């Protein structure tokens, strides 16, 4: 009777373990696929944000050209004003024209609200800061962690292997218990097989539960 119960138990448990192993393998595959998709989405969002900054930088180059030209023209106007006021006025107007050109570009900056020309002739557009700010504002980006997802896939893979091992233990138990059932008249051998089978069922069940606990 004990052998029959153990056979029944190990049969059912091996079926359950096989099913769980299959689920775990599916989960691993799902996470692997998800990791690739998350990586793609992450790249998409990153490229979009970098695209905004790149566009601003292109605009900043044009802005710098106008603003720096305006500054140079203004300086030249200042330099010649005493000797040639008419030329100075002309240069003033050219400078004003370039300033208005620079101003006309201001509304088109997307990552940063407007820019200005620094004393050293560069534009105060800090690409790294703008990118950091844009990234912080993109909550989805912060939550896309393909490496973590890949790690989940690895965990599921390891669990699948563990469950296959447990299934093998139950199959081994079935084999031993079958032998115990078959060797009806050799009592010592029958007892040994039964004990071994029982131990294997017990080890398998404990390992299965442990894997279940580890899986969360």
């Amino acid at each position: 009777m004990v052998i029959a119960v153990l056979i029944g138990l190990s049969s059912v448990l091996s079926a359950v373990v096989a099913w769980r192993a299959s689920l775990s393998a599916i989960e691993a595959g799902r996470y692997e696929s998800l990791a690739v998709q998350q990586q793609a989405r992450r790249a998409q969002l990153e490229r979009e944000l970098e695209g905004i900054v790149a566009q601003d930088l292109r605009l900043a180059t044009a802005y710098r050209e106008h603003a720096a030209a305006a500054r140079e023209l203004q300086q030249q106007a200042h330099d010649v004003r005493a000797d040639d006021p008419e030329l100075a006025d002309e240069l003033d107007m050219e400078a004003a024209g370039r300033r208005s050109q620079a101003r006309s570009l201001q509304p088109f900056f997307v990552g940063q609200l407007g820019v200005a020309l620094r004393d050293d002739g560069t534009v105060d557009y800090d690409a790294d800061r703008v990118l950091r700010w844009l990234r912080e504002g993109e909550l989805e980006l912060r939550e896309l962690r393909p490496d973590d997802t890949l790690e989940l896939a690895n965990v599921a893979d390891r669990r699948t292997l563990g469950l296959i091992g447990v299934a093998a233990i139950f199959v081994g138990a079935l084999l031993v218990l079958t032998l115990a059932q078959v060797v009806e008249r050799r009592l010592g051998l029958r007892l040994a097989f039964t004990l071994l089978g029982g131990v294997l069922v017990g080890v398998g069940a404990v390992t299965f539960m442990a894997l279940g606990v580890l899986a969360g």
Partner: protein
Amino acid sequence: MTARLDRLRRMLTPRHALPTPGDAVEEDGAGEQQAERSGGAPDDRRGDRFAGAIAVVIAVATLLAAVAGLLQAEAAELAEDDRLAATRSALEAAASAQRGQQLAQVEYQSYIAAVEQATSAGNAQLRSMLADEGSGRHRQLLLEHERWQRLAEVSLAGSEIGRSEEYGPEQDPTFPRRYFAAAREESHRLNALQDAYNERANQIDERGAAYTAILAVLAVSVYLYVLSVAVSAAMLRRSFVAVASLMLAVAACWMGLTALQTAPDIREDAAAAYAAGRVASETAHDSAGYADARRHFDRAIELRPSFGPAYLGRADAIFLGASQQRGGLVSLVPVDALRAARADTTRARELGLATAQVEGRLGFYAFAEGIQTGDMSALEASLAATTRALRLDPAEPVYWLNLGLVHLALERPTDAQAAYTDAAKHALYVDGDRHQPRNEPWLEQTWLAGALTDLELLARHRPHLSGLVDGTKEWLVGRIGAGTMDQPEQSDARIEDVVVTIFPGQVQWQAQIPGYQPERDVISAQWYHRLPGAEGWAVMPEVSGRSGIAADPAGGYFQLSRYLGLTQPAACMPPGSYRLELYLNGQRVASQEVEPDFGVLEAALARDITMAYCRPADWQPIEEQVPGLLHGFTATDGYTGVYGLRFDLPRSFSEVPGLPELMLGSMMGSMTDLFPAVPVLVEEAGTTDGYFMGLSQTAWQWYDYGSGWVRAAAGLDEDGAVLIGIVYGPYAWFDSPVADAIHDSMVRHE
């Protein structure tokens, strides 16, 4: 010990293997009698029949196993196909987004080129005005003007962004947001398809897993059948056969039910509706925009009821669309909208979107609903969701602020204080690391404003917590508002005689502050706004903060904070009540409420002439606009209007005394076609020199054009340009506060 072993041996030994003497005789005798009755070897025949039956059943089970294996393989293949399709969609979405953005940028560049060329045309026109009429230089500049204008027209024609096109700056107050958002529509659609493929792959995977289990059950069943043939004890044999048959039956039924399940179709139309909803939501700036987004999400959900991201999108559209707050972090939303948004977000979470964003929103929706309805379970749910959000994203200050708020609502001040301390740390330092100050005062003020608005909401619904709320507000302003985690310094300064003024584009407070030491004292102004008829006050982050406090030449100090041009889309101060709270080193020292009477005005930004102003919503842009020179709006009948002008002049002109007044007179004399009739200077009113946009040498004049007034102001900019602001309209119209409000709204804007 021996007795135990014997007992165990008896248990393990089949009854016929260890027979009692009596049993053996009886069994043997019965067997012989049966053999005699049946005419020889009856056990063998019965055994053959049993073995034959078992063989048939095993064959059936094997056949079922083969079918299950086939179905499992098919399911695995289908799931794999869908996962590949999902991955392909994700990659295509990424590529599509990049392609869309690049193409949009090309068009954008073309549009910018057109604006630059139009500005060059305006510059040439302006310089032609200063050249001697009829001279070669004059003609040359006129030709240059025409040349640039033609080039601008060609560039504009080559760009799909026209000034008045759907995505152009005149139709889109958030320009270029809508244009770039529309360029992402295809990538949203592909992302939606990706989600659909993933969902179907998951469902097919579940079927595959079921087939695996069925196969395992069938394998066990077959094994038990085989074992039943091997054992000789009748009871065991019957038990094995019974269990095996039961398992076979279960496996057969399970397989049938699993095979009957069908995978959902991939709904392209749902993906398209979702993409349209995303674009509408990303570009919405009023309740009509969010209602449009909601309609698209409704359609997407109708077509695919298990579409998690569509539920989330709809929740956002409901929440944001129901609020009248259009700046900062939105908090003030009616209960029914909160319930609907919470239900949709919960559904999205059930469908697998258990992200920090989802948990964070659920946490806030539950808080806002719970505090307004007095539902304690909603507050507990808020606490749980916010805690989950923080577990997923512990660096987000908003979740920490919300956690503190919920603890306060649940009257747990110690927990609230701990959460607010973490909130301040994460607001002021990147990842809460004290070695990495964030140095983003605008962002920090936005978080602070959101927290103060929420605390105001809490105090309104839990008046007995007012003391606790006030203390928390002071603590937050003393940290986040001051930009430091340190305890605010003690100060003997006092703030007295506070005067608050609301202009259509700016807010200002003036006060006497004896004992004020700027290097020691931090004064933080928090401006609250309440819409007409509404109950809740919301802090306006755009005008609140500690920067820009200056000594008033007339004595005392003032802080003039601009609103116009700092919001997206640009807006003027909304109608309703305003309240100023002044904090000195984290202590609230003054509070004052005012209600301006200028009504509803809309923003007009004219960076090309370095001006911004407010105007009635139904006024239209003038056709005569000249980039860099003239900008304006008029009523459709043309009898009322506003103009802004900028004259860039040589620096030598700045030395001319009263240049703005001269330019104003000259302009009014030469650009008479801008008015319903020729305006004539009202000499009796004279020229006054009141404040105008912070410019120098200001000149204010009145003109009369027969049926109405022209109120004009001019001033000299620091770069030598003269700026002019003009408002005109029928005599009676000047009795309303609108004309003054438009002039008051004019600010320098680059």
